[in-house]
Every structure is written in structure tokens, then in C-alpha cells.
């Protein structure tokens, strides 16, 4: 029989929290960010002997130091946010769309194709065609797994994931087909001279239209999820398919419709990447953002404004980390580590939002 000893009580116990005030939630998240920065600082100093403050300042300068850098960070942020906005309805429906990477690429391929083959068209018409084409292509790419899931209940996680590899191979094929100059194994800058199909510059930058588009998507998605019948159906299907059937919702159709939308927005992200930023296409046009955006969408709980904020944070980390890699003579892995540590702490803070720890002998004290 385990007789009672002094301090026989477990050292730490976990208890589920009721719900936390919004201020406390933000506090915990900001706290985790500070701890992450502190931890990274100690690590940087311990390993390289560099002054962490200098490293962080370099990071900041890397992301926001000059106008060009600001725009490049913003561009990255908008890409991430756009894909996350596209993923949001699918994930809210608990449809694990891991295929954004492929949907972006397919959208990019169609955009590039329009730019190459239809460059004689007037610019507004060409841009409209590129817009529509990339959206349709992304939607169709997402349609296939949705139909299979709706009809035969296949696993959408694997299906959408596999579709990425098909899209990557297709991209390779088109890169080889459109190779320019011959032998370079890249497409090069498309329409470098005429700039047909390029986003026109507004307020001195070509990225401005992307920003407008993404902000527009963000607002529309917010309204769509929150105030429309479709949004309501998505929430119900995501919560429980049985409840949805009980309510008379055609679950299969909602799945297909939502994935068409999700794919279309991801396809449009490809359009912006090609027509609005790089003006070329390669297998790295999506560059893993289709996966990073999953983190963005989840961390933000599918809220548009939060998705924009988290995209900004990630874009900042990425540009900043690149800068310290070159400036402080740390290699690329060091910056990757810093990003990893910060993400780890932010994700980990979710645990403390849902649970609290009770230390031995402290029961009942502190917050209830």
C-alpha cells in the first residue's frame, strides 16, 4: 500500500483550463515570443560568441532595412497569406488540404502559359485571362481529391499530398519545354522586353496589386466564413458530418464546392507569384509555402487578420534570417535554426493556453 510520504504528491500536474481571457492569450503568445528570442540569443552567444542584440538588429534590417527589403518582405508575406486564406475554408471544414503547393504550381503554369502564348492580347484582357485561368486550374487540381473523398471517402491528406508531386513533375516538364535560353534549364524572365502579362506598377511598385488582391481576399474570406450560408455549412460539416446530414446539408457537395474555392485561391497565389513577382516559373515557385501556409492558417484559427499577422512574422523571420546568414557569417542552417526555435515556442505556447500546470503543494493557489 503506497503510504503517504511527505511530498508524495506528483511534482507537476496538468489541468485543463476553462477558457482564457483574450488579453491573457495574447500575453502568453507574446511571452513565448520573448522567451524564444531570449533562448535564441543565449544559443547564438554560446555557440558563436556574437552579440545577440547585433544579430537581432541585423535581422530587422534584413527584413525592413531598405525600401526594396520592405517590399520583398511584404511580397513574401502576401504569398503566404494568400495561400493560407485559400486553405482556411478547407481546414475549417476539417478537410486536410495538404496540396496547396501543387495548386499554386498549377496556377503558376497556366499563368506562364498565358504570358507566353497570348502576349499579343491587350493587357487588361490578358491579365483577366491569367486570373481566371490560374483560378480554374487550381480549382480543378483540388477538385479531384474532393470528388474522391465525397464519393468514396478516400483519404484526402494522402491524395492532396500526392497531387503535389504530380504538379512538380508537370512544372519540370513545362520548364524543359519553355526553356530560355536553350540549355539553361530555366524559363528565364518571361516577356522581359514587352512586359506583357506583368502586373502594372502602382505607387512605384509592381507588388502593390498583389497587396490589394490579398487584402481583398482576406476581407472576402472573413465575410464568407462568418456571415454566409456557405460559411455556416462549412462550419457544420467541419464540426460533425452527422450533424450536417441531420441538418439537411449535402455534405459531398459542400466538400467539392469548398475545395474548388480553396484550390482557386491557391491557384491565384501562383498567378501572383508568376505575374506579380518573379515573372518566371520553376519548381520552386511555390517553394514550400504551400506547407508553411498550413501553419499560418492553423495558428490563426482561420481568422483573416490573424493570418496576415502571422504571415508577416514568418516573412520577417525568413528575410531577417537570410540577412544574418550573410552579414554575421553564420551559414544558412543557423538562420533556419532560429526560425525553428521561434516557431517551436509559439506553437508550444498553445499548450499553456489550453492547460495549466499545478506544482506540488501549490494547488488551489494562483488562478482558478
Amino acid at each position, binding site marked *: *500500500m*503506497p*503510504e*503517504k*510520504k511527505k511530498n*508524495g*504528491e*506528483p511534482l507537476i*500536474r496538468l*489541468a*485543463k*483550463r*476553462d*477558457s482564457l481571457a483574450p488579453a491573457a492569450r495574447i500575453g502568453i503568445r507574446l511571452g513565448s515570443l520573448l522567451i524564444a528570442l531570449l533562448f535564441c540569443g543565449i544559443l547564438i552567444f554560446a555557440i558563436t560568441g556574437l552579440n545577440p542584440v547585433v544579430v537581432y538588429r541585423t535581422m530587422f534590417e534584413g527584413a525592413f532595412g531598405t525600401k526594396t527589403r520592405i517590399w520583398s518582405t511584404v511580397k513574401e508575406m502576401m504569398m503566404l497569406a494568400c495561400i493560407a486564406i485559400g486553405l482556411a475554408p478547407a481546414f475549417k471544414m476539417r478537410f486536410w488540404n495538404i496540396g496547396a503547393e501543387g495548386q499554386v504550381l498549377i496556377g503558376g503554369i497556366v499563368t506562364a502559359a498565358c504570358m507566353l502564348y497570348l502576349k499579343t492580347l491587350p493587357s487588361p484582357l490578358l491579365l483577366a485571362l491569367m486570373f481566371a485561368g490560374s483560378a480554374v486550374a487550381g480549382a480543378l487540381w483540388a477538385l479531384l481529391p474532393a470528388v474522391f473523398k465525397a464519393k468514396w471517402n478516400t483519404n484526402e491528406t494522402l491524395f492532396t499530398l500526392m497531387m503535389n508531386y504530380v504538379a512538380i513533375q508537370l512544372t519540370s516538364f513545362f520548364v524543359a519545354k519553355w526553356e530560355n535560353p536553350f540549355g539553361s534549364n530555366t524559363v528565364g524572365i518571361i516577356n522581359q522586353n514587352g512586359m506583357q502579362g506583368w502586373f502594372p506598377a502602382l505607387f512605384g511598385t509592381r507588388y502593390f496589386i498583389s497587396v490589394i488582391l490579398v487584402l481583398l481576399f482576406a476581407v472576402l474570406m472573413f465575410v464568407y466564413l462568418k*456571415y*454566409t*450560408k*456557405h*460559411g*455556416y*455549412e462549412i*462550419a*457544420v460539416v467541419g*464540426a*460533425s458530418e*452527422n*450533424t450536417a*446530414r*441531420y*441538418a*439537411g*446539408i*449535402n455534405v459531398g457537395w459542400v466538400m467539392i464546392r469548398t475545395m474548388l474555392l480553396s484550390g482557386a485561391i491557391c491557384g491565384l497565389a501562383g498567378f501572383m507569384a508568376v505575374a506579380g513577382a518573379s515573372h518566371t516559373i520553376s519548381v520552386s515557385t511555390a517553394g514550400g509555402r504551400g506547407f508553411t501556409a498550413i501553419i499560418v492558417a492553423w495558428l490563426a484559427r482561420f481568422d483573416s487578420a490573424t493570418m496576415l499577422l502571422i504571415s508577416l512574422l514568418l516573412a520577417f523571420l525568413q528575410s531577417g534570417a537570410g540577412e544574418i546568414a550573410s552579414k554575421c557569417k553564420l551559414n544558412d542552417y543557423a538562420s533556419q535554426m532560429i526560425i525553428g526555435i521561434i516557431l517551436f515556442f509559439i506553437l508550444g505556447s498553445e499548450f499553456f493556453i489550453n492547460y495549466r500546470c*499545478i506544482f506540488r503543494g501549490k*494547488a*488551489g493557489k494562483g488562478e*482558478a
Partner: protein
Amino acid sequence: MTEAAISLKHVTKSFGSVIANDDVTMEVRSGEILALLGENGSGKTTLMNMLAGIYYPDHGSISVNGKEVNIRDPRDAFACGIGMVHQHFKLVDVFSAAENVIIGINGKGRLSHRQIADAIRKICDKYGFDIDPDKKVYDMSVSEKQTLEIVKVLYRGADILILDEPTAVLTPQETEKLFSVIRNMKKDGKTVIIITHKLHEVLAISDRVAILRRGVYIDTVETKDATEQSLTEMMVGEKIELNIDRPLVEERPLRLRIEHLSCFNEEGIQKLDDVSFEAYGGEILGIAGVSGNGQKELLEAIAGLQVTMPGASIVYNAPDTEEGAELIGKTPRKIRELGVHLSFVPEDRLGMGLVGDLGMSENMMLKDYTRGRGIFTDKKKPKELAERIRKDLNVVTPGIGTPVRRLSGGNVQKVLVGREIAAAPTVLMTAYAVRGLDINTSYTIYQLLNEQKEAGVAVIYVGEDLDVLLELCDRILVLCGGRVSGILDGRTAKKEEVGRLMTQMRKEAADA
């Protein structure tokens, strides 16, 4: 004075801001059968889980046989001789009875199946159980699984057994069998704590009754001095009328005629077999049966959620038309568009009837969210309805926007029933409408159903408590193995008769 097997001193346990047990000090005497009585959410299970090592108390101390102990996990509990049979069985389906019994025990030497089987048989003979050590759990009936759980804790040498609502899933006959086993255990010197909220069972089996109310320990009384009325008052804290009304409605028009209804579930097992019956407005048709005998499929078939076999027919007669409408092969939305006012309170409240993540207000529009203007949903009317239901039915919630998942079971049910009744149904189907609800809420629900009946609604009430079925329903249909084994008049039917019909088919199959 008998020695205390368990003594709890100032035990407190809270979950977030909810205090499940507040400064509970009580004793369990050695060798007694103690009934732990309390409404749902009064903290019975939480208190017992602290004895079983599932939870750890925030404050207070626990002594077993006079020694203060520290129970940190189930292993500690067994070391103290405490074994608990949980309400939801914790068995491995693909293992045999014997394999389940030895899970988690670190034995020495080779594992001998024969030895274990022998030990199990010995326990069975001693207490009057009936179990086959080689039978797989997936082949077992609910009552067999429960027996196995009890054998499991006895095998581990538990002297103090805690049974959490063991009779909730049993027929009257099976309950009687369980009680005789419990009495045998008492004779053998074991201490038994039984959690229940069925009063007649408390009076039948226990020596003493301990009562909890909203996490607070009220008192322990000798069973021989207690009555159903006195126990209820202690449990609820106020005087309560324990009679259920059964008004007689003169006009009873035909609403639903169901003929030759058969269906299979997803695993290809036949759940309904040639079911035919009629439901009338102005009456409550009770559906009795052991859980899982086709009740769920029957209601879902009527609601348009269950695929049925060819040849079946469900005809709905609207109040103002002569001609009936066939419901078979129609989706829930089609049925609604036909103008059929069918309300359905499903068994799985949060998994089917409501969306747990959404608030009361947004749950109100679940069935008619399509009514909003254009592409947008109308949030105003559901909000008003939510406020009205919250007020009329006393729903306890921080706000109509609070996710209904966070509400207690009783309040969740009020939200669901409130919505379904607000839809002004002509047919109202309820599955286990009072499961897990406290007495006050249960009586509120009975009253709501009676009001609907008096308003001319055809009420179909799937229930598990036979006493309630016999008091509330005008007619009782008994389902057994997916077949209608009898339709009785609720005013004249006897409990034993219903119990017999509930198990009839099984007996016939066993005899064949």
C-alpha cells in the same frame, strides 16, 4: 462500530473554475454496500475517480483501512485494494476475456493461459458469474462485458469495488442478476460502492446511502430509514413531485404509418427487420428495448438519414390534407420542403443534433439557415429564439454565443429540445431525451413532451428507463433485435412484461 474501509477528509477537486468536489468528508464502512447517490454533475464519478487513481485531489486526504495513502495512479489504487468498474468499459475488443483480465499486470515467469482461465472460473463460481474466459470481447453482450470488468478487478484482488452506474445499460432481469452477485461479494467480506441515480435500485441493494449535491457531501443515511421521496429531496435540495402526468387526448389522427421497414448498418448487420407500426397525433408512443436494438436506425430512417431496404414505406399524413406523403428515399431537406414538420432529438446530441463549437444562437439556425436573405445567413431571428429558449427553459450558459460544448449535459439537451419544439412539429421524435439529466430537468422534459402531445403532436419517445416509459407513454412499442416484439398499452402494461419482450428474441435464438 465497524472499521472504515475508506475515509475521505476534506477532499476537494476542481476543473478550471468548476468545483467538482468541495470539501468532501465521508466514510465507507468495511463490508458494506454503499450507494453513492446524486444528480448528474454532482461529482460522484469525480470523487470515485480519485479513489481509483484517475484524478488526484487538489486538497484533502484519503485513508484506506485506517492508513493515510497517496493514490497517484490506478496501480496505487490496486495496491490499496481498490478496483473500479467505469461506466464506459475499458476493454480491448479483439482480446479474449482472459487476456483482458491480465492486461497491465506484471506477472512473474511464463504466461499460462490455463492458469488464468482457471482463476477466472474460480472467481465466477464463487460469486455466481457466468463468463467464458476464451470468448472475445467483440462477441460479448453489454452485460457480459460488464461482468468481465468486475471479474477483472476481483482477479487483481480488489477488496473495495466501485461500480459506476452499472445498471444503466442492463435490462431489469440482468440488473437482478448483478445485484445477486453484489450480495455474494458482500457475503465474502468485500466492500462495494455503487454509483447510481435510480432510487428503487438504491433501496433494493444498499446498506447505506451517501448523497452528494453539486459537489458537496450532504449526508449518509441508513437505507432502511430512507424512502424514494426522502432521498430525492436530499439529492435535489427541495421537495419534488415524482409523478409524471399522462393526460388523455381524445382526438388522435394518424400521422405516420410505417410498413415493412428493414435496414442494414454500415457493417452489413441487419438493424431493423420488417418493422410496422403507426403513430398518432395526441399520443406519446414509447419505444422500449435494450440499447442498440434498432432504435437509432428506426428514428433515423423516419428522418431520412438511413438507407432502407426496398419494400419499406413510411407515409406521413399532414393535418390538413387527406393524402399521405411517402418519406422513403427522401433527404432530410426534401422531407422538410414537402412541408413535413418533423422534429428529431437524436441520441447523440453534440455529434448529430447540435454543433458543439457554435453557440446557442448559431445552433438555432441549423435546420433553417437557408432562410436568410441571398447568400447571407440571418442571425437576428436565431438570436431572438436563443434568448427565448434560454429564458423559458432556464438554460444556464454564460451567453448565447458560448459554444454549446461547454454547457452541461442538461443544458445542452434543453437547447436541442427547445429548438426542435420551437419548429412547431407535427411529429416529434426523441431518443433518450433525459439520458444524463438531473431530476428537475428530466421532469421539465416530460412536461414539454406532454404539452406537445396535448397540442396534437405525435410524440415518439425512445427511452431506457422502463418506469418512466410506463408512466409517460400511451402506447409502448418494444424493439428486440430490430423486430417489433410487441406493442402494449402504456396504461395497463407491466414492467416484467416489457422486460420479457425486450429479451424475447435473444432467448428464442438461444433456444433454437
